[in-house]
């Protein structure tokens, strides 16, 4: 049987999606359901003086209205930060409580303060209009740069500071800077983004009055963790009485990692009102309340020699957490950001200092790449600036500072197991026809246009997160993954994984690796995920971890199946276990034609004694059945890397930036399915390019989100992109048996600096902030023209 790993297998999940038979949360209806509408603070910062529900309660169809008072009375806990980060001075981070319904204070526009349940959605909406909330409006803290000098939002959190974190050695950096020929300085803003999964968040909750079990269908990237938090921290119900199901989920990109207010409130309320509840976010609600991404202000410095060797690097960042610290909120700007800020380079000394602060805006958490795009943007922009200031070619300066040997001990934390950065950059250079750029630039100029080229080489730490490493860093949780591989008696295989697919194609890729391990046709393998009643436990999908952690758990469980199967086959074949070999789905006795298929062995394992050739196929002490599970906790992160090159053409009369060519060469280690991996790269690129040229979440002074619809927030569309030119190199990961590294976030990590380097190159080195909109570019072109005129 030919190996399926490496093949362009078409997706098993596609038919249902293409025929309209996907089952997303908002497609689910339960008999007798009520409809929930949340009443949200229209103010960024306000004291809640009084909530009057009397009129609304009498409105047609209203079943109940609940507020923060009710939820506090029932002692239902709120949302939590998942990672404890310590400040440089050793003090613990400061996190405010985040109740599911705000009781005393509303801290961002969209913070829920009450909820209406009614017989129809229209009735719920009408009643919500009748709920009177008396607010005392306070001055909002909305400007990130001023946050630490502003009034404290949360009681007991001075300067609105969650932590002031340091990674690295300030003294060593000072010494390195003292020796430098030149210090390159860069101030950047990594702008705020809104993940915008196309499926808005939703939940449908059903309380079974007989079994006293709550079932919550929800749009989650990790239903197991949602159940754990709702149970252990929320006190909604014990885990055995709470089932969380994430059916088909329409994209996540980090925004559906978190458990949200609405899921806690509806789960708690369903039991209280003894009715099923359906809540579906409208798009503007998603804009206001989904976790946002990025939002950093960074000052970076790079110490270099005149011939372009890097000596040291400083990264001083203020990171916006929004109003509350959520699950990955505190780790994203620290351990997912700081260590990667020195990029792919040998950097003798470095530090990252991050001050994470609270503002009256939506919580900021992981968004595709989470910390690593911000890190890569910082280093790749400053490296380009160094090349410009030193008069070097951007490829030459990069090549000069790459590590040449692996494993490579990266400056701040990571021990990178494998890679070949020069090979990737050389390949990208060739595919992008880098040497032909000068001629293309000339051609553009002859049409009155500007042309620029941008380069990025990135690495990332993903496969989040190995316990041995994160615990060493002071974080309390390691993120292993679980798998159970179940043979049915008649030979089909069901695989239960704790990870979750919301576009990643696990139903196909996980079946490919299972098929290879067990020699069972892929049609006979089903992948089950997303239901806490099906599968033991899991940590979910984010940080490019599904294959590198969850996939390996499947491989390991399959290996256990083979070990047990061998024993049974040996007994069935009356051979010694050592003589039995497993190959292509068959247990074969060496130097003979005696064999049993794995299906026959599975059948025998469940029905010992049915076969007549031997009385029982089970060796002594062996239990019936062919089911194995595995929990995989990797020894290290995995480290995908790559080089991207793009070209832009700018019309100085309009400021319009046309992305003309984009080349991506990535090293993901072993590729299980190139068709799917290419798709992941395309999608990642679109989001990274989106940040560079289109997307920007904007709050005004009073804390109103003024980009809260698709009329105001620029989503990249089909006509914004050229055809991407995709290539791969391969150095296998040495830390897992498949050699895989993960591919979900790479495009997003690399694309933003690549495009911005090209835009700035086209503008002759003129700094421009994210995103490079036509207006900003036009202004930059105009100011450049003025300077030219003066010089002349």
């Amino acid at each position, binding site marked *: 049987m030919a190996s399926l790993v490496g093949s362009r297998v*078409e*997706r098993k*999940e*596609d*038919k*249902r*999606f*293409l*025929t*309209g*038979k*996907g*089952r*997303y949360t*908002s*497609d689910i*209806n339960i008999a007798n359901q009520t409809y929930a509408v949340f009443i949200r603070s229209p103010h960024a910062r306000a004291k809640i003086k009084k909530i009057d529900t009397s009129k609304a309660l009498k409105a047609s169809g209203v079943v109940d209205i609940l507020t923060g008072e009710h939820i506090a009375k029932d002692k239902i806990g709120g949302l939590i930060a998942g990672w404890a980060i310590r400040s440089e001075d050793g003090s613990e981070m400061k996190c405010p409580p985040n109740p599911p319904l705000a009781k005393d204070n509303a801290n961002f526009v969209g913070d829920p303060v009450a909820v209406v349940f009614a017989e129809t959605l229209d009735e719920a909406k009408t009643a919500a209009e009748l709920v009177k909330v008396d607010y005392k409006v306070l001055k909002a803290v909305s400007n990130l740069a001023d946050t630490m000098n502003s009034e404290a939002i949360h009681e007991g959190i001075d300067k609105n500071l969650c932590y002031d974190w340091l990674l690295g050695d300030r003294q060593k950096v000072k010494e390195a800077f003292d020796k430098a020929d030149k210090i390159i300085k860069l101030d950047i803003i990594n702008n705020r983004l809104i993940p*915008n*999964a*196309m*499926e*808005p968040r939703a939940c449908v909750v059903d309380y079974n009055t007989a079994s006293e079990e709550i079932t919550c269908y929800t749009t989650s990237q990790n239903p197991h963790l949602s159940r754990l938090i709702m149970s252990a921290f929320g006190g909604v119900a014990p885990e055995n009485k709470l089932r969380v199901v994430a059916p*088909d*989920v*329409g*994209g996540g*990109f980090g925004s559906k990692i978190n458990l949200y207010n609405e899921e806690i409130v509806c789960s708690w309320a369903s039991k209280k009102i003894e009715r099923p509840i359906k809540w579906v976010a*409208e*798009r*503007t609600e998603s804009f206001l309340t989904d976790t946002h991404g990025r939002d950093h202000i960074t000052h970076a410095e790079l110490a270099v020699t005149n011939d372009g060797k890097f000596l040291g690097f400083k990264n001083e960042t203020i990171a916006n957490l929004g109003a509350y610290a959520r699950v990955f909120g505190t780790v994203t700007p620290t351990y997912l950001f700081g260590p990667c800020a020195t990029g792919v380079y040998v950097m003798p000394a470095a530090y990252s200092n991050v001050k994470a602060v609270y503002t009256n805006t939506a919580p900021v958490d992981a968004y595709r790449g989470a910390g690593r795009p911000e890190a890569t943007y910082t280093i790749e922009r400053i490296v380009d600036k160094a090349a410009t200031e030193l008069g070097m070619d951007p490829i030459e300066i990069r090549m000069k500072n790459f590590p040449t040997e692996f494993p490579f001990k990266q400056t701040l934390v990571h021990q990178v197991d494998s890679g070949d950065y020069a090979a990737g950059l050389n390949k990208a250079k060739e595919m992008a026809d880098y040497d032909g750029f000068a001629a293309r630039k000339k051609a553009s100029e002859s049409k009155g246009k500007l042309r620029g080229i941008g380069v990025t080489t990135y690495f990332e730490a993903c496969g989040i997160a190995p316990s041995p490493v994160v615990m060493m860093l002071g974080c309390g949780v390691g993120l292993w993954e679980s798998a159970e591989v179940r043979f049915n008696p008649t030979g089909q295989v069901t695989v239960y994984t704790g990870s979750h697919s*919301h*576009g*990643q*194609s696990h139903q196909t890729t996980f079946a490919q690796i299972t098929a290879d391990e067990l020699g069972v046709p892929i049609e006979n393998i089903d992948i089950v995920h997303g239901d806490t009643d099906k599968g033991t436990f899991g940590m979910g999908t984010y940080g490019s971890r599904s294959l590198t952690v969850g996939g390996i758990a499947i491989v390991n469980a399959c290996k256990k199946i083979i070990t047990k199967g061998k024993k049974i086959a040996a007994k069935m074949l009356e051979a010694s276990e050592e003589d039995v070999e497993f190959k292509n789905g068959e247990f074969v006795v060496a130097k003979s034609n005696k064999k049993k298929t794995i299906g026959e062995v599975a059948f025998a394992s469940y029905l010992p004694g049915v076969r007549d050739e031997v009385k029982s196929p089970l060796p002594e002490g062996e239990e019936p059945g062919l089911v194995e599970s595995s929990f995989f906790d990797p020894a290290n992160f995995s480290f995908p890397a790559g080089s991207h090159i793009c070209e832009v053409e700018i019309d100085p009369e309009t400021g319009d930036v046309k992305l003309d060519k984009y080349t991506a060469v990535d090293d993901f280690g072993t590729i299980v399915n190139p*068709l*799917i991996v*290419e*798709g992941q*790269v*395309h*999608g*990642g*690129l*679109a*989001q990274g390019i989106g940040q560079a040229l289109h997307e920007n979440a904007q709050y005004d002074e009073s804390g109103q989100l003024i980009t809260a*619809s*698709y*009329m105001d927030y620029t*989503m990249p*569309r*089909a*006509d914004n*992109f050229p*055809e*991407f030119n995709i290539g791969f190199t391969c150095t296998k990961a040495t830390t897992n048996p498949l050699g895989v590294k993960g591919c979900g976030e790479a*495009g997003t990590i690399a694309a933003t600096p690549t495009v911005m380097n090209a835009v700035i190159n086209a503008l002759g080195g003129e700094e421009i902030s994210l995103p490079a909109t036509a207006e900003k570019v036009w202004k930059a072109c105009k100011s450049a023209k003025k300077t030219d005129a003066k010089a002349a």
Partner: protein
Amino acid sequence: MKKIDVEINGKRISKEIPDHTLLSDFLRNILNLTGTHIGCDTSQCGACVVHVNGRSIKSCTAFATDLNGSKITTIEGLAKNGKMHPMQEAFKKMHGLQCGFCTPGMVMSAIDLLKNKKNPSDKEIRDWLEGNICRCTGYQNIVAAVKEAASKM
């Protein structure tokens, strides 16, 4: 309340519905045709595109009762005798979908494009699909799927 008589995916449907019912809500909530998706509230995302009398429209922009007498096709009505439409096949072959949420609208829009233009260029495909937002694919394999379908239809 108003009475509405329409043909949906080849079946005659006759219902009494509130005047303000959007076509998208009529399909999803009253007929349980949940393949048509709602991704926004400003008629921007295109996840709800269906065909009315052979032309693609955003079903969230039309009142169902205004379409009395129309022939409507949704994503559920494309496959014939268990065989997917060439556009559906092409999306599968070229990996033109990931999470699947925008897919129904994308497929319905793309079919309408090919009705208007037999062999569209990349640019024509990208311009036509400007009203359908996809967050997963970066559009590249969607464009490839439309071209693949064009070569088969």
